[in-house]
């Protein structure tokens, strides 16, 4: 719509601005994003598709990918449900300390992920503030899949909330009021009026959280113990293989993760249009 308008206003004869600006866009992206991504694909398949496939189907590689997906999944489930709840509470009720809570939820964005990792260790590790009381009972949170989920939750904490909260803020209050005057319970109003309008935000919040969690490295390497075939996630596997000098093996998994995020953001892109059209 806006593109058509500008065409009407500025174009006399041949439009050079359009091809020029598109070329500029691609040229800028080339060295910054496109070429680095391309080099993963070139390197990962450089010694033939057969060794690429072997690298991909190595038992520890498959395990690492599965572990990443499962731990990211649970972190996403938690953070979307929590983000929804937090956005609801923080929009509906005004109370002392409300803004402080909003700021706190956003904090993990700017905290280095390594700090998130050792903060968890300092709390839940066998010598941590709380962990030292759990350890004698045989309860070990750190260096297990639970630790990876906790790290993922911490690191992606603000994402779903950040997408859902603005929708709450701009939501048409009168719809909910109408629902209430028609005798709906709080729960009915939430389920039939509030939630449907949040569909798009929930989906994009979930996909963003999931994508970010799958790629998480800095906190995971500290809390997981990095045991191949047990607590080694896909990013840790890539790092380990790279350090060992097995660059192709590292790249094979990197390709999977790159395609994976491409898929996620394609779904996000398509589903958004579709959900908004509803």
């Amino acid at each position: 719509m806006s593109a058509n308008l500008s065409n009407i206003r500025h174009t006399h004869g041949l439009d050079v601005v359009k091809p020029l600006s598109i070329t500029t866009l691609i040229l800028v992206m080339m060295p910054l994003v496109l070429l680095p991504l391309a080099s993963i694909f070139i390197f990962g398949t450089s010694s033939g598709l057969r060794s690429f496939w072997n690298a991909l189907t190595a038992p520890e590689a498959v395990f690492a990918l599965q572990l990443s997906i499962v731990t990211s999944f649970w972190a996403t489930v938690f953070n979307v449900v929590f983000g929804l709840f937090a956005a609801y509470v923080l929009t509906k009720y005004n109370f002392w300390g409300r803004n402080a809570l909003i700021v706190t939820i956003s904090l993990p964005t700017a905290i280095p992920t390594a700090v998130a990792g050792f903060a968890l260790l300092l709390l839940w590790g066998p010598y941590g503030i709380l962990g030292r009381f759990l350890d004698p009972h045989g309860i070990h949170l750190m260096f297990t899949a639970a630790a990876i989920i906790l790290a993922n939750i911490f690191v992606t904490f603000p994402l779903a909330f950040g997408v859902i909260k603005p929708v709450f803020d701009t939501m048409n209050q009168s719809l909910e009021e109408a629902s209430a005057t028609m005798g709906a319970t709080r729960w009915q109003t939430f389920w039939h009026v509030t939630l449907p309008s949040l569909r798009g935000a929930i989906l994009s919040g979930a996909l963003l959280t999931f994508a970010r969690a799958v790629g998480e490295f800095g906190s995971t390497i500290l809390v997981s113990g990095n045991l191949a075939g047990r607590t080694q996630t896909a990013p840790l596997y890539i790092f380990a293989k790279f350090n060992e000098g097995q660059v192709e093996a590292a790249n094979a998994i990197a390709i999977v993760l790159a395609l994976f995020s491409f898929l996620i953001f394609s779904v996000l892109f398509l589903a958004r249009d579709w959900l908004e059209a509803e």
Partner: protein
Amino acid sequence: MKFKIGLIAVFFSAMVLIGCLPSAPGGGGGGERKITVYGFSIMKESLQKEIFPAFAAKWRAEHNGEEVKFESSFAGSETVTNQILQGVPADVGIFSIERDVDRLIQAGHVPNDWYVTPQKGIVNKTPFVIIVRKGNPQGIADFADLGKEGVKLIHPDPVSSGGAQWSILAIYGSELRKSEAETGKRDETRALNTLKAIWKNVIATPGSAREARTQFELGQGDALVTYELEALLMKDANAPIDVVVPKATIFSEHPVAIIDRNVTPDERPVVEAFRNFLWSDEAQKAFVKNHFRSVTNESFNDANPQFAKIEMPFTVEYFGGWKKAYPDVIEKVFRDQVQKK
């Protein structure tokens, strides 16, 4: 409404599908024992390719077919030690430097009487050498040449890597040793100046010896000081490199320790059997095949024709052991006088 039910159905089936933790590769089955090994970076190949399978076969034969499964993680020696100090479930640790075992003893993870064999806990050794690009374009013949103008050196970070500390001891000790041979006195000023000149040329400090090698292989730097084992592994892979053997250099010696607090009485027999297996002829020969040198029997080392002859070898004992070498050289010389500049 149909749409919603469909969505919920998809959601829950997805939950069931991807919400379950994957089972460990090759896992499953009862009557199986598990040993968790944390090792310093360059131990990986010999352990995974030779030692783990050999021990599992031996145990299987001696214990009615009982399987032993290994889980392992590799990083710089200091990093591994820090992981163990924070509580990773390691049964056995194999370190680059004995100082790391001392740190674990101090924290109560390893008992004072941690070694049981005449080798004092050392499982294998290897000398420190210099790796340069094919043809040695900068004409590097000994450590001192690494301090020449324009040489770019990759050197692991002594904060996380045991190999980096060995390298510092190798360079510093090499100058002491040569000066002692020439004048009868250890020339500490000469050793310090050489180390300073070399450190000026360091362009990257990776976290472990293995990481340093990867960076070098990817084309960074002109030279790398590292374990002879790494140089020979690179030669095996036909990397375009030359190996420069210094006139005087250190033999690094790598200790193994059982992490007492993580080993239950039930697990102890298999864990101890594995540790003791490292000194068996079978394991020592496997180390030699993978370019580590044997510590139990010097004649095993004749089996590897690629081992370099070192003119003036020395060990950490030259500095009075790790308990003196770490504070005297790594801290007082390297950290205080070379790095803080």
